[in-house]
């Protein structure tokens, strides 16, 4: 999905993106090398495998003010470590329920399988998610948490 003029001008969400080293991080390198333009919303944290992504990381990202969290891993069957992406998938489904209970819109957390060759797919996913988040507006969970702590 191409980025609309509207998105460029308006508020830009901040997405914490956890990408696995072997597939999605490589895809994001490929997007770079291919000069595929996408929204400047993602902030990538590289992990060796999507299986490393502790649910705590996702919750922490939201409570520290992320407007969205994007998880990128290898396609099913393609995990560099055999099955780390399946473990990630299980945690993702659990996390979707947890964040809903925290009052976070489920569309703010997205899991995508993006292989090393799918730079184009990465561009599409980031632009789509940015557009969705732009419609949802800034996440307020950080303020809520800060208030509760006080």
């Amino acid at each position, binding site marked *: 999905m191409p980025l609309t003029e509207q998105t460029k001008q308006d508020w830009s969400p901040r997405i914490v993106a956890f990408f696995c080293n072997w597939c999605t991080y490589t895809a994001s390198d490929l997007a*770079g090398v291919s000069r595929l333009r996408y929204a400047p919303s993602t902030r990538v944290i590289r992990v060796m495998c999507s299986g490393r992504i502790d649910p705590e990381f996702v919750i922490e990202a939201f409570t520290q003010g992320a407007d969205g969290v994007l998880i990128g891993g290898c396609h099913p069957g393609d995990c560099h470590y055999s099955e780390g992406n399946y473990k990630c998938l299980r945690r993702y489904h659990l996390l979707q329920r947890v964040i809903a209970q925290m009052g976070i819109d489920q569309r703010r957390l997205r899991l995508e399988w993006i292989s090393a060759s799918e730079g184009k797919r990465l561009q599409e996913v980031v632009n789509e998610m940015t557009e969705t988040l732009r419609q949802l507006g800034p996440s307020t969970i950080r303020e809520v948490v800060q208030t509760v702590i006080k």
Partner: protein
Amino acid sequence: MPVNEEARVGFYICHCGHNIANMVDVTAVAEYAAKLPNVVLSRDYKYMCSDPGQEMIAKDVEVFKLNRIVVASCSPLLHENTFRTATSKAGINQFYFQMVNIRENASWVHEDKEMATLKAKDLVRAAISRVVFHKALEKKKVPVNPDVLIVGGGISGISAALTIANAGKKVYLVEKEPTIGGYMAKFDKTFPTLDCAACILTPKMSAVLKHPGITLLSYSEVSAVDGYVGNYHVKVTRKPRYIIEEKCVGCFACIDACIFKEAKFSDEFNEGLSKRKPVYIPFPQATPQVVLIDDKTCIHFKTGKCPQTCAKACDRNAFDFDQKPVVQELEVGTILLCTGFQPFDAARAPYYGYGRYSNVYTSLEVERLVNASGPTGGHVVLRDKSKPKSIGIIHCVGSRDEKTNKWCSRVCCMYSLKLAHLLKEHTDAEIYNFYIDMRTPGKGYEEFYDKLLNEGVHFIRGRVAEVSDWAINDHEKGKLVIRVEDTLIGMVRRIPVDMVVLAVGIEPGKDAQDIRRMFNISCSNEGFFLERHPKLAPVETFTDGIYIAGACQGPRDIPDSVAQAGAAAAQALALIDSGFVELEPNTAFITEELCCGCQVCINMCPYHAITFDDGKGKSHINEALCKGCGTCVAACGSGAITQNLFEDQQILSEIYGLLVE
């Protein structure tokens, strides 16, 4: 967030010429970073990866007593090692380094300088916040097994095997077909020199067989791969030939004695243009010279009621009808994948009539027809045994086409020219070449094209629309009519010919995806194996110790495949001769005091690296088996597992740094 008071961070941002500086305000980022906690020094520099850039780090470490280094530049997959080495040369542990990717992940993908700069600042803050929690680690050195596995016995695999074996290393060459040689063995002549393919290939094939350093495992496939760089465990399944390889001398008495007096079954080597018996050898120079039985057509295997005349004719008792697949285990240090390609299936372009009109041939079929050892003994004849008087060669079948494959297959222009020359020589027919663009980049290639132009071969520029037998005048009757827009004269033409040759393109092999999964490497979008870097590491993969060469990486001709095989062989030899590999210390370990003994982690590990100590009631990770994915770390409820380089605290600080200004 806890802070580490002792950390003294040196921050460097790279301009990468204009690559970064054009889209990210590097001075602003450097000024911003200078004010962040723990940062002692912040600089921007034109090319950080250059020698002066690296030396600057070393000097600064000495002068400013730095103990942490952060470099914002390109992808860590490209230059992390460069800067780790620079850090280590500066006298501090190489893992006190963190890299920020602001090129592939920012300057190259954004259009708004302000936003790209903001993003770069966030990423830099995250890295600085993370690096203070880095720990000093040591890379583990493990010895490299000097033996090499080469998968695929085409010209690439053969060349690489000979190079490596000539260097005194042991090579296992695995080939799934009954013979090595690959597609090159089917060719008659090679372009542009027109030297005979068999004359240059068969000596190499027999050199492979005779070489004391090469173990040839033909008619075998790799069924499992385990281990890591320097130490791979490989299982090879040897398919049953029903012939004891060591006993067969290649006299072919069994083939003559087969109960089938006439050959009845389609001969794969001749592209189905001739017949073979159930007991056969693919071609006379097959290597090894060992026959095999096709159990799908053999009467014995189909009915169990065959007098086994073949076995009786064998005076060496080489027959064993009870052979079963045998799994052979190999230990190797490096692996070369030379698994090749498959030709485009011409039936996928139905408008050219392949399979419908008997005189439409693929280029490979014509290679066999012009070959002196082919099904017709080198006589180019149509299916009715008559000699063609006019021949049309259609280029780019399945290539450069939105409907099929988008890429240029690189070899078809040249082999079409070669076939045009050979067909002219064999038949003296009128030859028409239909091309979109003539692509002849290579030594002597353009000259070869020139030569053909002077030989009286017709060249018509335009993509052929259709091949049909629909005649609109007597002149076209009984012929195949090629309909094409001749873009040089600007009109649609109908060219009647006796024979059509489809120059089919190159595709990834049909088992490329299975091979990729087995060896844990990636494929590019088209399905060819993905190299580590398109320019700087064209034969390496993202999995250390696994190299690729030949057409499995992309369409290429024989000289390029051989060159790549040499490059891959050199890479493997360099690794072997260094004697050891250094492993990334990103393994996980368990802090016993924190482990509650719940054993959740044990099922997480795909490598069975975690065991439970019943006596202590604690789990334990075997470092040698751990590959460092970190899946167990994320599953541990009591926070007892730590992954080096990706500790919870490091990642949490990174998240915090990203979001909190």
